[in-house]
């Protein structure tokens, strides 16, 4: 079973985001980078599938050269090789992203049985790259999956809905987009980190097509300028809290 997982490097901010002067990006000078929890569980699931069935896990990302860091982190979890589609500093829109990913998959020497992606990216959250890739590959896709069973030539996907769960049965090869909660990702081991350094990464440099969804401005919503009223610094504040419970009618 050869599984490909798509991930995306995004800034990680503990507090509020700061926007760059040109109003187009997040100020990242003081931030670390990560991937979405949706993608962390995607890689973990791929590693588990290969532990069970044999095969390989490839991690693909479209992003700046620095995104090698995110590929290596997932190699420490168990991915075998990486594909880095290197971009300029500009943001690629969902159509351009899907086209480049589908091309990389088609041109790869491995015929992937399963492509796993996050249901939506952490930052742009466009809800569409996985579906566009599946169309370009001519493969079935199920989205928003929170449990799956993979057999030799078919997979069963489970998706939470308001009324319970929906089941989808699909023959492989297929594409699936997954949600946080699919599993609990393992932490990388020290030997895993050491092995990760030597694993191969293939680089691709396609041209960026014209964007058709063009970001013109980013903004932090203005509604958030509260500052909590401090009621105390220990158990002695409990009566004041209970007063609030009464005021808002929860007791």
């Amino acid at each position, binding site marked *: 079973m050869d599984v490909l997982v798509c991930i995306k490097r995004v800034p990680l901010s*503990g507090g509020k985001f700061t926007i760059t002067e040109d109003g187009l990006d997040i100020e990242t000078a003081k931030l670390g980078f990560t991937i979405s929890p949706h993608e962390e569980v995607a890689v973990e699931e791929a590693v588990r599938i290969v532990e069970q069935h044999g095969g390989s896990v490839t991690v693909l990302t479209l992003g700046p050269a620095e995104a090698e860091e995110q590929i290596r982190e997932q190699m420490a979890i168990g991915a075998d090789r990486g594909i880095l589609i290197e971009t300029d500093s500009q943001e690629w829109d969902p159509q351009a992203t899907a086209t480049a990913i589908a091309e990389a998959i088609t041109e790869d020497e491995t015929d992937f049985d399963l492509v796993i992606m996050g249901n939506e990216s952490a930052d742009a959250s466009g809800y569409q790259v996985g579906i566009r890739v599946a169309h370009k590959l001519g493969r079935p896709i199920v989205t928003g999956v929170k449990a799956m069973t993979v057999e030799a030539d078919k997979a069963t996907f489970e998706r939470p809905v308001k009324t319970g769960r929906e089941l989808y049965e699909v023959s492989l090869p297929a594409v699936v987009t997954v949600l946080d909660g699919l599993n609990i990702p393992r932490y990388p081991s020290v030997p895993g980190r050491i092995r990760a350094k030597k694993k191969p990464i293939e680089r691709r440099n396609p041209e960026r097509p014209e964007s058709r969804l063009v970001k013109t401005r980013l903004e932090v919503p203005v509604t958030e300028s509260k500052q909590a009223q401090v009621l105390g610094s220990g158990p002695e504040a409990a009566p004041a809290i209970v007063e609030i419970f009464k005021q808002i009618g929860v007791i």
Partner: protein
Amino acid sequence: MVLVLVDHDHGQLDELSLQAVTYGRELAASTGEPLDALVVGADGRSVAGALGEHGVTTVHVAVHEGLTDYAPLAWARAASEVATRTGASVVLATGSPRGNEVLAHLGALTDLPVAADCVEVTPGSPTKVVRARWGGSLMEEANLHGSPALVSLVPHTIVADPGGSASGDVAEFTPTFSDADLLVIAKPAAAAEESSGVSLADAKVIISGGRGVGSAEGFAPLEELAELLGGTIGCSRVVTGNGWRPHTEQVGQTGTKVAPDLYIACGISGATQHIAGCRNAKTMIVINTDPEAAIMGYADYAIIGDIGKVLPAIIEETRKAKAG
């Protein structure tokens, strides 16, 4: 014409669709066009009346023998057929899992760009949108170059409002599908396990714990307080990542979005991705040892202290108050 993609479950109308119809009505009024809607599946006929009351002129109902359960690609194929036949200028879906899914398939089928999770749409060329990023922690203004404009609306951007009474004429048609369009079909599984108590999304009171709770056992006092206040437990991703609580209790960008009357955040730092799930809480109380924690900037009240000491005191005071 503005075309709204309506979501329903075997004839049961999704309330978010009425919000999209209400927004679609405003768009149609601004461009002087009629408002149409698409419902897929024969049992969707029953929702036409409600759609008419909300201002829909023509309800296109796609009827096909292969269409009983939800099939995302087939729904998009039907949408593509109607959009082309009617010359729609905007196709509007709900920013729900299904709405965004069908819209993305439509974008792939037609090779048109899609703007998901919009809070504002101004049709034109290009169409201007304001859309949510990072689960709503950032807003993006963007230009969408394509016609029809394919957009979805963030849930609860607008209140569903009838008062746009239109004829709601039903126009049935049989869409043309290939076998591939019906390859992925939902089989409804056994309904959700009987859960005790209220669901997190609908809870009025949530006692939420983060890394500061320290362990699975550390949630005992949170559960006790939840019980006293008729509330339910929420948590941060650090908590689900450590396996202390199930993911169904995670609040945030990749968890559940909640809007309770009261949210008590215990040992949670307030990362934007957590706030993305609880920014609509009416009252937020924080218990945290760190007066500089980011969550102070979102909360109404705070106790700067150790939850291990503060929670037992609150529980005791609450007991006393309830006793009389």
